[in-house]
């Protein structure tokens, strides 16, 4: 299982080590870590609470991951997303992609993040220092980020980008 939804923190270097243990076929590893910002719209944030839909969250992340594997020659991937109350600076999400060459790893990591943001059922609520809560609005730029992936970017078989 390479998808995990958890309240606990994660350690990116530990996940990379686990993903690549005893493997010599991998030539490129890309990681993305999303963290909690301490301010939003000029206001300071005391904490960020992530609500999710248990069951559907895991299913949706697995679907997105399977699509990335169908699209790029990936050797391994890991997606970890936290839920619950998180403080500014805390880790929210980790995406790791491993491939023989860097292009697939870079592109797949971006694809995973774009699709995860638009489909995985998580909702962020910011709590300000004075205790007021605010549900974060979905950003139109996140929807726009998906549009580019509708292009047929499947790598041409036999063409190996430089590693």
């Amino acid at each position, binding site marked *: 299982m390479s998808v995990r939804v958890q309240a606990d923190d994660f350690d990116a270097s530990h996940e990379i080590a686990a993903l690549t243990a005893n493997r010599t076929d991998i030539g490129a590893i890309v990681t993305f870590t*999303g963290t909690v910002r301490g301010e939003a719209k000029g206001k300071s944030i005391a904490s960020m609470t*992530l*609500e*999710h*839909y248990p*069951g*559907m969250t895991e*299913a*949706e992340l697995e679907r997105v991951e399977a699509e990335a594997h169908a699209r790029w020659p990936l050797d391994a991937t890991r997606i970890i*997303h936290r839920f619950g109350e998180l403080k500014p600076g805390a880790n*929210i*999400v980790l995406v790791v992609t491993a491939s023989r060459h860097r292009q697939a790893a870079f592109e797949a990591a971006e694809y995973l*993040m774009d699709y*995860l*943001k*638009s*489909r*995985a*059922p*998580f*909702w*962020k*609520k910011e709590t300000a220092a004075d205790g007021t809560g605010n*549900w*974060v*609005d*979905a950003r139109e730029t*996140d929807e726009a980020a998906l549009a580019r992936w509708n292009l047929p970017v499947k790598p041409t078989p036999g063409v190996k980008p430089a590693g």
Partner: protein
Amino acid sequence: MKLLYFAWVRERIGRAGETLELPAEIRTVADLVAWLKTRGPEYAEAFARPDLVRAAINQEHVKPDAPIAGAREIAFFPPVTGG
């Protein structure tokens, strides 16, 4: 039918979920939203802007015109904001 609510949809309705007997004439997600809105002011407020409420049937995203036949679980929630 098992219904689930998340984020501000849950807060406005005042519960995380419920099991309701649905009238037979409800065929789509949009029909269900229209019917729920008649159940009280908290539902009317939660679904005041149907374009801002997303739905899932059996834990898969669906559009408002999706038929609800065969559904075990229908969820309503705002556009997702994870990542």
